[in-house]
């Protein structure tokens, strides 16, 4: 067996994670709900978006199923923004093989679809568009782009796996299930492109001894995502069980 390039103990999503996690306070200001007249309500009923009146640079993801959907929407915004930059970067077609280009173009399309679907489902409950912070990513480096894609896809899988039990509405659980397996398909493809025909597509840096993928709860996921978003993501009102 070829050596696994990832140490099993190293489950951190980024070098910034621990620091970001420590910084993550978990206590945000929940602005009072304010209804926006004349807006579509989305699938989840009338607007109770705490961000309707933007107060500061903090985004309150909200509570209940709406909060979890906003949490997913934030992650999909991140992924969609990332692949949009990847595909738009100078020298894209010269940097990647044909299959890699197709994969990255597909991932861009899928993540934009996920983002726009969640935005539609949330209606006026949707958080605003986030401002990505991809300063740390060299979009002209194939290695850097693929490594970041791997982080984002694995994080997405772990986030949806962890959030499943937090959802109350069975229809939304099914939707989360429909999305998470596509994220896992992405993760597998990106990992195999990085280290072809190895065990890495489902490597034991992410799969445990029971053959289980990761499941992470929102605080850990948000801490890992925070370095890539300019606004402060506040998940303190999200359900915890």
């Amino acid at each position: 067996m070829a050596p696994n390039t990832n140490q099993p103990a190293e489950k951190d999503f980024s070098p910034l994670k621990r620091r970001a996690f420590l910084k993550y306070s978990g206590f945000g200001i929940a602005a009072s709900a304010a209804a926006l007249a004349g807006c579509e309500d989305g699938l989840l009923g009338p607007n109770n978006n705490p961000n309707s009146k933007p107060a500061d640079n903090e985004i309150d993801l909200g509570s209940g199923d709406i909060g979890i959907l906003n949490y997913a929407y934030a992650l999909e915004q991140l992924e969609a923004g990332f692949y949009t930059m990847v595909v738009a970067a100078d020298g894209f077609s010269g940097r990647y093989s044909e299959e890699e280009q197709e994969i990255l173009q597909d991932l861009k399309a899928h993540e934009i679809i996920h983002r726009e679907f969640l935005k539609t489902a949330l209606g006026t409950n949707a958080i605003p568009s986030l401002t990505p912070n991809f300063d740390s990513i060299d979009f002209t480096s194939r290695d850097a782009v693929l490594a970041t894609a791997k982080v984002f896809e694995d994080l997405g899988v772990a986030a949806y796996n962890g959030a499943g039990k937090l959802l109350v509405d069975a229809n939304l659980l099914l939707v989360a299930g429909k999305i998470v397996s596509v994220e896992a398909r992405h993760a597998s493809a990106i990992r195999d492109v990085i280290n072809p025909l190895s065990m890495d597509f489902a490597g034991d840096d992410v799969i445990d001894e029971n053959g289980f993928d990761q499941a992470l709860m929102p605080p850990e996921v948000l801490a890992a995502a925070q370095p890539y978003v300019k606004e402060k993501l506040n998940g303190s009102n999200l359900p915890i069980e």
Partner: protein
Amino acid sequence: MNLNQLINMLDLSKVDHDEIKSIGERRGFMKKAGQFSLKAALATLPIALTMMPRIAKAQGSTTIDVLNFALLLEYLERDFYKMGLDSSALIPSGDRQVFETIYQHEVAHVEFLRAALGSAQDEVPEFDFTAGGMFPNGFTDYPTFLTLSQAFEDTGVRAYKGQAGNLQPADEVLTAALQIHSVEARHASMVRRLRGQRANLEIKGWITNAESNNAPQAVYEGEDATTHAGADLNSIVSITDISAAARTEAFDEPLTKEQVVEIVNPFIVKRA
């Protein structure tokens, strides 16, 4: 087997503590009298292995049914890869690590589900991977093996997805099922891309429309759906410039238990 994970799956409030205490004492696992903590008692292996079956039963018949259904599919996959890996001329050496990895995961899934079910588990099935002659060369012809592998993995993904709702009352079991579900999806993506490369077919890691790529069509029935939780992707204005094919790829679809049973039944030997 991670015992703590297993114990955390259980709803201990549904378990008859006194009954377990008395059995534990009778079998000499526990001393009589003194404080009794079910969770602490379960943390010792012999007690856990003895008690798990009756505790699993306490979780309710729906959960048991789902876990047994999952176990059937995991047995199918495990035995399929075992036979494939044991067929010396079948898998090219460069591709073996992929299937060894998948096989190890299916073994782990079987072990986990068997431990969780205890005596509530169904008997070990016997498989006929020719499906009554439909696939006579599954272990001699690599393209056929890849086709079956793709079909089993994509079916597995859809089967777990279809059961998520049934596991909603049992949080920890639901999470365990989701954690297996995404591993099956990683497998499916890998096998699909590998098959595309080896058979020179246009197959992506994700499912386009309801395209079966010559695998059994029933495995891909309804995969082209675009309406999710009541919202139709085709009516979202902001994504009209994205291809219709991509809209079907972005969401995987569930199968009902009945649909899955129909797909896998030809591979199961009926007992007299």
